[in-house]
């Protein structure tokens, strides 16, 4: 009873220390909201208004028709029409355009023989953008072809009828926004936890805490609680933003989502405590947070698929808690995945949480003096 009261006092103190300081209060509230909004709009695979140039050497009706098709697409934005191939390198080198469509002089003539060729010159510096640009162009050419065939009373021999499940309109916002819930929550939680002990050490208050009857385990729990609770609140706010602001469908079970979040936050808090156990100053704590967070985000499948990574790195991602929670959150949001389907993600998360907490407790105990 008495030790419970002591623990409660410690948790209250941690919250007061965090929230009464205008600076740390701002850090907990503003950047996460800001990041959610910015990432929500900025992080997308969709390309709109790709700047491109046309070099039409043909000038015939068919060429004009094709040009109109490209111009009419919301994905493309015509920057210039060229009169010679002389200007092409400049335009691409200076990134004024990402694509040059070159229609050869024989285009209108060849098209009736079904052997017309259109050249696409793409800026390949960002391979991801380049392939997306080409996809858009391919789609336009395909529909252009189909149109021509229909005009001749023909139809293509076969046709693809795609139907996307879960994200019916291929909106990459639907893919990213749920991911932001995990990434932002992790950063805030690790930060709050990692800095709380470092702050005490730096300000010299830690010794004062150690001579009180509070046991190391009490202190550990007291330090873990604010990060955990703030992470929970943060995650809930971002989930609300995702649903009501970004209109991302939340199709699954909230219970499954929160079970995942609880396990995930255990790992985040454990990692934060580990960082704090070896940082003596705030600066070291901050550095430790970055050393952990940057690779954790990159190797999580947040933006790039884990399946595309080299096998060794793929194994490394197995200890990354972010990897599992991303699948869980996306699963709950878009797939309405039930708890039993999420089990393969939940148990590794629980193991990582347990291991990181135990390690944190061990390191804390060892480094406490």
């Amino acid at each position, binding site marked *: 009873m008495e*030790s419970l009261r002591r623990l*409660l006092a410690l948790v*209250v103190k941690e919250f007061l220390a965090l929230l009464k300081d205008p600076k740390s209060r701002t850090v907990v509230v503003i950047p996460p909201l800001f990041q959610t909004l910015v990432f929500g709009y900025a992080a997308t695979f969709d390309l709109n208004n790709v700047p491109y140039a046309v070099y039409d050497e043909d000038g015939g009706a068919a060429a004009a028709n094709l040009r109109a098709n490209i111009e009419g697409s919301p994905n493309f934005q015509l920057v210039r029409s060229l009169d010679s191939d002389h200007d092409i390198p400049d335009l691409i080198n200076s990134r004024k355009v990402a694509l040059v469509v070159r229609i050869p002089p024989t285009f209108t003539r060849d098209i009736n023989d079904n052997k017309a060729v259109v050249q696409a010159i793409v800026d390949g510096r960002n391979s991801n953008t380049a392939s997306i640009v080409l996809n858009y162009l391919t789609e336009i050419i395909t529909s252009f072809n189909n149109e021509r065939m229909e005009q001749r009373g023909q139809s293509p021999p076969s046709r693809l009828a795609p139907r996307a499940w879960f994200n019916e309109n291929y909106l990459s916002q639907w893919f990213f926004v749920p991911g932001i819930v995990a990434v932002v929550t992790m950063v805030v939680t690790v930060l709050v936890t990692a800095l709380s002990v470092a702050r005490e050490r730096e300000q010299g208050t830690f010794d*004062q805490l*150690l*001579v*009180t*009857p509070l046991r190391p385990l009490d202190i550990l729990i007291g330090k873990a609680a604010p990060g955990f609770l703030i992470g929970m609140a943060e995650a809930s706010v971002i989930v609300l933003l995702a649903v009501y602001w970004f209109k991302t469908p939340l199709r699954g079970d909230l219970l499954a989502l929160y079970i995942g979040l609880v396990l995930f936050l255990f790992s985040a808090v454990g990692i934060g405590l580990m960082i704090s156990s070896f940082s003596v100053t705030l600066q070291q704590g901050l550095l430790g947070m970055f050393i952990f967070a940057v690779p954790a985000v990159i190797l999580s499948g947040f933006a790039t698929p884990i399946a595309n990574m080299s096998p060794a790195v793929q194994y490394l991602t197995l200890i990354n808690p972010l990897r599992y929670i991303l699948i869980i959150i996306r699963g709950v949001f878009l797939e309405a995945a039930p708890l039993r389907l999420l089990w393969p993600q939940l148990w590794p998360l629980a193991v990582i949480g347990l291991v990181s907490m135990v390690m944190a407790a061990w390191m804390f105990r060892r480094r406490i*003096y």
Partner: protein
Amino acid sequence: MSRADLEVRGVSKSFQRSGRSIQALDNVSFSVSRGSVTGLLGPDGAGKTTLIRIAAGLLLPDAGGCSVLGLDAAAESLAVQSRIGYMPQRFGLYEDLSVQENLDLYADLQGVPKTLRPERFEDLSRMTGLGPFVKRLAGRLSGGMKQKLGLACALIKLPELLLLDEPTVGVDPLSRRELWEIVYNLVQERSLTVLLSTAYMDEAQRCEHAVVLYEGRLLGQGPPSEFVEAARNRTFEVQPSGPPRALQARLAGDPKVVDASITTGCVHFVTAKGVQPSALDLPVAAEPREPSFEDGFMILLHQARRAEGTHLEQGAIRRHPGQAGESIIKVRGLERRFGDFYAVQDLSFEVGRGEIFGLLGPNGAGKSTTFRMLCGLLPPTGGRLEVAGYDLRKAPSKARKRIGYMAQKFSQYGQLSVRENLRFFSSAYGLAGKERKDRLAWALNALNLETSADANAGQLPFGVKQRLALACALMHQPEILFLDEPTSGVDPLARRAFWRRITTLSEQGVTIIVTTHFMEEAEYCDRMLIMMRGRLLALGAPDEIRGDAASIEEAFIRLIESRREAA
């Protein structure tokens, strides 16, 4: 009068701190003549550092101005800075560079020509005694050595005016003495002009001119002898038959007495104007004594402020069971090793219940290490120790309820208010309900914290912070109170008040373990332990330690010097 190298004319400066305006300096004027040493004295927060920074051209005054070597410090700050040496309180030594590399760096920064350097370095290392340590990392030097290196860096270009901001704070008496010798040699050999701030009264007496600041105002200035004269015929000493502490405490609480302190087993006191010692109802007749600078300073300060209520009423702490005199702390063969360095070695002592026990020693002697081991903050690498029957490091949390701890630095939560701090620490010690409420009320009342109860602790003046720290340590009525350098950076008046509280606590049966740099404070201890290089140098009551030396400080320096010779 010779030419003034520094002239301060009506300088005022205020700072904004979280909406409140703090008047750091209020219309201060004085001058420092060439080739003299001027001391800037005053308690913490008096404005000493602000004044020195304005003189160095680092801060702009709100009103008034400083002329330094004939230049205006504000308008021509770069020209001023190229001709002065300035050593801030925490000198910017690069701890990961060696002594030589630090010197080279500052020589580069100040543009000392390469051809002049060997001679300057030679000169400086002779003066400071840093010669044998040039290859050592600055971070590995002792506190005193660091200050000497800082001074050497400030002197690298042979400035015309030297500004030193508390150069001797936190430095042991021996190193202090050596620093002063360096400064005096410079003044004599190179007719350097020096302005230095200090909290040590005995240092003021070494200056040719003293300037006393208090809360930004100039309280007085003149040769130290003038301050001494102001106290003439008002200073007395009395040697009671019993321990002097009780009498000192009584006199200090008497409105007819300006100041009372303990020196060499006697109670020294200064009476209020026109009061004869016969009016004080003394047990033994008082003898007149020669006044000192400190007496004059205390009179000035006493006029400037009404003393805060300093008494902890009886019953502040419940009496603890147990016999007075039984050993409450037992240390046997204590050892602490860091790598192959022994911070503490073969240390044995016992502390009796209700004693005030002092831990003394120069920087790096191992007293802080010992202190931390006693509190359970640092595991010993050898030996045994028992505090109230436990090794606190392994003790159940219940055992820690029996001790109170006050760190050297302010260690309460700066973002929390006074009340929130008290609430947290009382709950951390398991107080609840009515008991907690009562103790909270007691702490706010007994330690004069009511007016600042809802202010954020981090923004309080130093003295209030210290009272808060003491309150937090006393919430749970501990049997043993650990105090780590509780009075460093505190002015003499507040220091007296602090000791009066400690004395009251001790009368109520609390055992007190205290580390201190101030040798005069050793006089308040029942017994003390002097450490040197991790080992016990002397252990005993003040009288025994003092022996035939004039003061504890003298005895201390003798002991250390004899040990250094032996080594």
